[in-house]
């Protein structure tokens, strides 16, 4: 018997640990077969799945941040969620960005209309913020994924 057991239905929480040094692998197919006959399925084992590969495009430029508050709830971003932020992507209209505004990091949707920049909250209880030449503002990064706990 092979010692490499198939890990299926493994605790998803474990995947959350995106340790860049470790390879988190889930073999697509396992092979616990009697010796002698090669499994026909073996030919189809191509790769194992790595969430880093799926969720992170630019490792050096990718950061995780944690959400506080409810200003983005209508976009499915809730307090306690972890956001994956890629600093290498350009901030363009309609992207969800992390902005450094008046010395604080904030998550909002960027809207650019007629050359004017706005930060849109996604919650009607919050006001839209217009970026003016006086604003202490810069784009910190572009949000690519939100990790939300469902259990």
């Amino acid at each position, binding site marked *: 018997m092979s010692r490499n057991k198939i890990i299926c239905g493994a605790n998803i929480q474990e995947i959350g*640990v995106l340790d860049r040094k470790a390879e988190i692998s889930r073999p697509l197919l396992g092979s616990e077969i009697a010796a002698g006959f090669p499994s026909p399925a073996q030919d189809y084992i191509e790769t194992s799945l790595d969430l880093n590969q799926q969720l992170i495009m630019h490792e*050096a430029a990718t950061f995780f941040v*944690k*959400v*506080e508050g409810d*200003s983005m709830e209508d976009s499915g971003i809730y307090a306690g969620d972890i956001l994956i932020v890629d600093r290498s992507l350009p901030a363009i209209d309609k992207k969800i960005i*992390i902005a450094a505004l008046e*010395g604080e990091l*904030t*998550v909002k949707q960027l809207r650019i209309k007629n050359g004017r920049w706005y930060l849109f909250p996604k919650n009607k209880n919050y006001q839209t913020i217009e970026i003016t030449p006086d604003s202490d503002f810069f784009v910190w990064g572009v949000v690519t994924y939100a990790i939300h706990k469902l259990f």
Partner: protein
Amino acid sequence: MSRNKIFALVDCNSFYVACERVFRPDLRGKPVGVLSNNDGIVVAASPELKELNMGRGTPAFKMKKAIKKYDIHLFSSNYALYGDMSARVMKSLAYFTPNLEVYSIDEAFLELTGINCKNWLQYGRIIKAKVEGWTGIPVSVGIARTKTLAKLANTIAKKYEKFNGVFNLIDHPRFRKVLQSVSVDKIWGVGRRYAQKLQRYGIQNAWQLSQAEDNWIEKMMTIVGLRLVKELREISCVDIEMDIMPRKSIVSSKSFGKLVTSLPKLKEAVSQYTTRAVEKLRLQNSLAYQLMVFLQTNRFRQEPQYANYCSRRLEVPSAYTPDFIKLANSMLEAIYRPGYNYQKAGVMISDIIAMKYAPLDLFLPCYLDDERQPLIDSCDKINSKWGRDTIQFASSGIKRDWQMRRQYLSPRYTTCWSELARVK
């Protein structure tokens, strides 16, 4: 020796301070300092702090009044953060070339030979923009035909604001003028002694040194000096060094926050340093044979002095923390003498081998092949998820009043899930 090579030296500006600022945009433009171990002195200062005459070396206790007055922000050294941000800087540089030499935590040489580029200044600007955009760490870039000149170009890029952090020496129309502006003691590889010696012979600047006669230089500064002079003449003699070997030894030691006299307290400290060192060993997928423990009193105090060390070998190489803690404690007992105020202790792991080369011994329990490995793996996993020392060995103690002072420690934004930056 070659005349056609191209090197860049990329150096982070006030690196430790920059790391703290990435996650604290409110600190831009404010005086910020990072303190040494035990929050002793300033080891990194932002330009704003330097302007207040509180640059490197200022003792923290002397700044108490100024902190409020000038809104100064001080931080304890956050090595987890700086190490991770450094790796990010190096990784973004690796997009430009695989020929990368990580020279220190905050600077790297890139060999750009063979890249088809007509405007090296522009290329340097692209490097700078990429690193800053990706990591948030501002850098300076110097480009030249040799490593020594790239380093020199970098200091110029840093020194004069008008160059916006990038300076190119390749085919520079006023090459001679530039070298004349750099005094010999500022040249990479010229120590203070040699600088004084050269100045006595009337050699004040880099240009004069580059024009010195070969024989004379070799007599004065040996063959190493001659190599350096050739580098100033745009003849490359020093290659990029890419070190891919695992570390030969791992040291974990720190000065105590306050002097320690008792053996149990020392054991706690040494257990914790050992734990840390063995964690590092596992991170590089290695095993080790040799462990050394050392301790010392504070030689600057007018009191009885004592320092000693002890080194022993494991029968089989291991990366199992309890193996090392047991050994460390027995060695500590052997060298400990009561009645002294100890200021520092530490451990060094050496004789390191890659795990895949571990000998398999039939009679001795092997680290790789028993039930101990899952235990230690779980500890590492839990600690990486919930933060360092969530799970620890009881011998490390709970109270730890010997621990270093790190009063102003910032969160480990990039290496600990529970300390991520918060966004609203």
